[in-house]
């Protein structure tokens, strides 16, 4: 299997040969930042296109098919429109916080994005508390959303932000606990080790019942975490207009929009990493020739394929289920998901202690 660290190390040696150490580090940081932002933007555009297509197919339509072949350039056209739109200055807003909020949201999302293991050796941040770091930075986004609602000086924005904050903080618990369940199984917090640990079978199969429950809970909580339907309460056209980003225009709105889609990618990416083996090909212990054939598929495709499948499931949720009311939403978390999750964690601990897993 191809190891991408060969390429990164080659670039590293090239730079260190030509430049002093400090300069090489700076150049590398800039390069990595550029690559991340580029990947971020491209993935967001692709996701917006996919979302529109999938939504259309669920509604028996064709979706965008005019701009470019199969409408592939539609989201590029939308991006250009968004970029050249005016950012409207609104009176009586807290200008500093109002301007800061979208950047906090996007920074949190990019930081979480940089933790994902895209392929073998293709990972930006990897250290011994990687998954913990990922949960921490992805939670910063809530601050941005609350600030956006607060600084807008608009009751709809404020209520939308409060709802969003309540929702995200509640569901953070479920996400954290289901990730913790998988950490108990793997015994590590480092993302590369999490993936390496699945070389002889994905955690979803190795952990059987508790892993499956954690997987379902993670998907539900992850959907809620990204503020997507059926949990898209922060945006309610009839009650709150567009929620916390009502007052935003132009690219500031675009940042919230991008972050929403990228958060979906991150949630799907973490689901793929924790439960479906990340970039690890499908390996069945004992079937040597089968495993070898699977190894021929590049690890990047394995990761993107799994993430794509997860994203499809999340979109499937959105276009199937009716929205919840805010009390139903919180009841689902506190009365159903949280107790199930705690019991599931206990079950996983028992499974691991008595070595009942594969």
């Amino acid at each position, binding site marked *: 299997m191809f190891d991408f660290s060969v390429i990164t190390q080659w670039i590293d040696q090239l730079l260190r040969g030509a430049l002093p150490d400090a300069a090489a580090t700076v150049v590398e940081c800039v390069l990595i930042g550029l690559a991340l932002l580029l990947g971020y933007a491209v993935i967001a555009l692709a996701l917006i296109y996919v979302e529109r297509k*999938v939504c*259309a*197919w*669920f*509604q*028996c*339509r*064709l979706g965008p*098919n005019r701009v470019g072949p199969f409408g592939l350039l539609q989201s590029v056209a939308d991006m250009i429109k968004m970029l050249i739109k005016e950012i409207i200055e609104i009176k009586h807003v807290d200008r500093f916080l109002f301007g800061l909020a979208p950047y906090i949201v996007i920074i949190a999302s990019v930081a979480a994005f940089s933790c994902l293991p895209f392929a073998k050796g293709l990972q930006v941040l990897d250290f011994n508390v990687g998954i913990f770091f990922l949960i921490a930075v992805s939670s910063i986004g809530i601050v941005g959303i609350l600030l956006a609602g607060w600084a807008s000086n608009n009751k709809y924005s404020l209520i939308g932000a409060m709802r969003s904050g309540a929702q995200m903080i509640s569901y953070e618990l479920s996400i954290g606990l289901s990730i913790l369940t998988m950490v108990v199984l793997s015994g590590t917090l480092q993302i590369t080790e999490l993936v390496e640990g699945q070389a002889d079978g994905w955690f979803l199969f190795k952990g059987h019942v508790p892993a499956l429950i954690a997987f379902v809970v993670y998907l539900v909580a992850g959907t809620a975490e990204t503020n997507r339907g059926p949990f898209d309460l922060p945006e309610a056209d009839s009650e709150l207009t567009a929620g916390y980003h009502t007052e935003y225009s132009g690219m500031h709105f675009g940042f919230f929009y991008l972050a929403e889609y990228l958060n979906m990618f991150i949630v799907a990416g973490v689901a793929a990493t924790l439960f479906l083996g990340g970039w690890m090909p499908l390996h069945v212990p004992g079937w040597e020739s089968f495993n070898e054939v699977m190894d021929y598929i590049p690890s990047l495709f394995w990761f993107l394929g799994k993430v794509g499948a997860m994203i499809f499931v999340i979109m*499937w*949720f959105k*276009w*199937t*289920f009716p929205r919840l009311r805010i009390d139903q939403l919180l009841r689902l978390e506190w009365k*159903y998901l949280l107790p199930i999750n705690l019991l599931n964690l206990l079950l996983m601990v028992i499974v691991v202690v008595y070595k009942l897993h594969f």
Partner: protein
Amino acid sequence: MNSLYRYIVNFVKGLRSLLVGMRTTLRVFFRKKITECYPENRKKLVMFDRFRGELVLLHDSQNHHKCIACGICEVNCPNSTIRLTSEMVTDAAGKKKKVLVDYHYDHGSCLFCHLCVRTCPQGALDFIPTFEHAVFTREKLVHKLNREGSSLAPKPVAENLTV
């Protein structure tokens, strides 16, 4: 105990109904899409029979129509879209008869209510499902529905009237 039992039953029921919903939407996902890619498929696009595009006076192969110039359609038209011009003609037997000269139809003011077709005692009118009606001036929307040289069908009503 009872409440715990209800909690679990509700949970399972809810989960089941969600899965049924997901199965339904997945079926729709793979169903044939109903979107018409209009300008590309205009050669083979078939409109619905019920679509009211344009009023026509039906003519048969001998250029006969069934309009007796009674004017009921003109009276019924809410927008005065239809205007009939007729003249009195004395036929060979010396009988006076009203004959249609011009069936004037202003497509631009028609509201497609179907009242003319429904009240026509002879069944001489119909709507056809054409829909590409865009023109540059309003005058082009005014049509004369009776064809040049057409006449009333003879008594045994002609069959196979066509557009």
